[in-house]
């Protein structure tokens, strides 16, 4: 019954195996490890998240692929694993952020939103007739109380904060690389550099501005904070998360 791949216990999500595992979650993690590499690095004045944008064919219009996504003005997310599962999760995350805004008049802090996403993922491990999400997420956000924070969320629903992390195919090598190069006072510019170097380590094919996506959190300065939560004529909250344009990525790659 209990053999290496779980045997009879591997098919039902709601049953523990004798070794205390939920084998479906192990399989979900395997699906994540087959996905393209993503990473995130927290700097003293921001966060960078990045991923490979690998197309299976040159005929694919890769300008339409979105792997780094905005959830709300202060939080962005990147994934490794199954694209469609990611799509569903960001839809839920965006709705959750808007629901929070509707009650409190401000966007949620990173930890709170991460907890909501993790709860959604956990519910798919304890309900009948559903399977776990086949993605791991790196959530990068800024809020006035904690400053910049980077969280990883796994298919099991467990999440934890990182200073730097990698997920997906090349995560072991990438994490070793990051361990060597990370220090607590790294600047955002250095972090973007390090992120690109780390991605390059395991990159299959040419690394250009069309085959990678980068998202950046910039910590607001004291002047920007004093000026108020909303900005500009539209009165919308100032964003702290944005995706780098292709030109910006090209400039960073050229360095």
């Amino acid at each position, binding site marked *: 019954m209990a053999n290496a791949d779980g045997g009879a216990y591997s098919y039902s999500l709601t049953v523990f195996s004798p070794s205390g595992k939920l084998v479906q979650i192990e399989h979900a993690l395997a699906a994540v490890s087959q996905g393209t590499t993503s990473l995130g690095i927290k700097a003293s004045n921001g966060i960078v998240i990045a991923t490979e944008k690998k197309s299976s064919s040159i005929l694919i219009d890769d300008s339409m692929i979105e792997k780094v996504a905005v959830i709300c003005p202060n939080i962005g997310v990147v994934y490794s694993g199954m694209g469609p599962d990611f799509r569903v999760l960001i839809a839920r995350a965006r709705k959750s952020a808007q629901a929070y805004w509707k*009650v409190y*008049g*401000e966007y949620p802090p990173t930890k*709170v939103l991460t907890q909501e996403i993790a709860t959604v993922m956990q519910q798919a491990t304890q309900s009948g007739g559903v399977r776990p999400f086949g993605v791991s997420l790196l959530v990068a956000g800024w809020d*006035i*109380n904690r400053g910049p924070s980077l969280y990883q969320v796994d298919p099991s629903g467990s999440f934890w904060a990182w200073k730097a992390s990698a997920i997906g195919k090349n995560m072991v090598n990438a994490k070793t690389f990051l361990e060597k190069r990370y220090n607590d006072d790294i600047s955002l510019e250095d972090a973007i550099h390090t992120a690109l170097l780390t991605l390059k380590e395991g990159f299959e094919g040419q690394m250009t501005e069309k085959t990678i996506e980068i998202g950046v959190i910039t910590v607001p300065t*004291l002047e920007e904070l*004093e000026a108020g939560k909303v900005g500009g004529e539209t009165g919308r909250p100032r964003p702290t998360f944005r995706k780098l344009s292709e030109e910006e990525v090209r400039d960073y790659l050229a360095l």
Partner: protein
Amino acid sequence: MSIMELNGGSVIAMVGKDCVAIASDLRLGNQALGISSNYQRIFPVTDRVYVGLPGLATDVTTLRERFRYRVNMYTIKEEREIEPETFAHLVSSTLYEHRFGPYFIEPVMAGLSKTPSGGYKPFIAATDLIGCLNFAKDFVVAGTASAKLFGVAEGLWEPDLEAEDLFETISQTLLNAVDRDAYSGWGAIVHVITKDKIITRTLKARMD
């Protein structure tokens, strides 16, 4: 007779220099019959945020408990105290949930909000019974004596009053307004909130 006038009572909040004050009368009645001269309708939300709930007494109790539940859940989840502006939005959305069968309360809030540089800024706000927010810079009023409170406050308030002067100003505003209203009065209480402490004083008022 309107349902908002069944129990009576009024609340006012004012902004001073690095301080805020919130004050109310202490009367609870059943139309013309006075029942209590010690009815509290101002409650602390955090060390720096106070809320006053004038209107129907049963809703005063219910709303106090609803806000306590929601603020406790917020504090535990976010691991921090709620800020005044955030609490004001929470009050607004809670009231709007009952848009077509509202609570008969017009909340008044006062507090000190943290600025990005680490200081504290005075904050007051009020809503109507279905949650329309009013972020005034000077004073906010609600209750059966609200029209009188508007008049006296407009006359007496000036910007940048120190804590002691703010206390005198808000007290005179409250006393002279509720003395002109049949359903408010029977005692008064004033809370002055500064960044280090909160001073609560009960006023000697006309008991007629």
